[in-house]
């Protein structure tokens, strides 16, 4: 099959920035990246105040799979590593769904619904569901209050991504008097 283009490098960098912001703003207590990131992005996440740790998971075919977790709180990272570092990936069992919801800050009601009914219809606008990392349950009362913080982080991550990708693009902050591009620190 052709690659649908869902997982291109650009998309992954955006997602990592978005997750970093959500975590740095404590909307999510801890986040996991299932892919490698550039040194530059790693530095940006550290500059957000995040602590990062690498761990290894094992796939059923024997492959070792590197993951990265980030949080403001080292204890949360230690808890996650204690539960998952070196563990075999078992897929979406109810126990794993509950554990990940607890680590990643997803409402318990949504985790229960997902473990029983998968992507069951919910009451969210598709545009709101799209920016979440969990599938909200029907009639959820815990997810809607989270949405403003998710929307704000999503918009900010887009701005950050554009600035990283095109540091001299229109909109980059330029101090003409001093001849310095504030986004890059380079002299003009």
């Amino acid at each position, binding site marked *: 099959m052709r690659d649908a*283009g869902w997982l291109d490098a650009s998309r992954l960098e955006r997602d990592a920035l978005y997750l970093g912001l959500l975590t740095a703003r404590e909307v999510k207590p801890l986040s996991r990246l299932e892919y490698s990131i550039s040194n530059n992005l790693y530095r940006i996440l550290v500059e957000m105040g995040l602590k990062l740790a690498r761990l290894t998971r094992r796939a059923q075919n024997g492959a070792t*799979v590197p993951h990265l977790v980030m949080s403001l709180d080292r204890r949360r990272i230690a808890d996650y590593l204690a539960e998952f570092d070196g563990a075999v990936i078992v897929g979406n069992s109810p126990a794993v769904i509950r554990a990940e919801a607890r680590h990643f800050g997803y409402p318990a009601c949504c985790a229960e619904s997902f473990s029983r009914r998968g992507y069951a219809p919910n009451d969210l606008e598709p545009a709101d569901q799209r920016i979440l990392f969990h*599938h909200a349950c029907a009639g959820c009362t815990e997810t809607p209050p989270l949405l403003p913080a998710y929307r704000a982080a999503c918009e900010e991550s887009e701005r950050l991504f554009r600035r990283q990708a095109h540091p001299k693009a229109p909109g980059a902050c330029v101090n003409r008097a001093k001849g310095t591009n504030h986004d890059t620190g380079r002299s003009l």
Partner: protein
Amino acid sequence: MMTDLTFTSALEEIQWIQQTGSRVGLCGMRSGRIVVDYGSVMMGLDGCPICGCAINMGFLRVTHDDGRCVDVDMVTFHNVQAGHPVSDAMADKLIDIVADR
């Protein structure tokens, strides 16, 4: 409906429509009488338990103008691409819809 379409080729058709169809609404892509809506593809990724690859969460909704509709979990695309076993519970319905586009 009699058709030579296989489950894999029906999934390929869906991917092709999602990439090249004409836009409908916020997240829909149309080809013929089919709309592929990717509004339920989520931001999150998960690890494939079989090979460890990062895979998308969420699903594509395939809707025919006559009202028939089927959801295709994003994991299914990965499983077919990677040669993993595929749950084909909705295969017949998807093939019928795609064959009638």
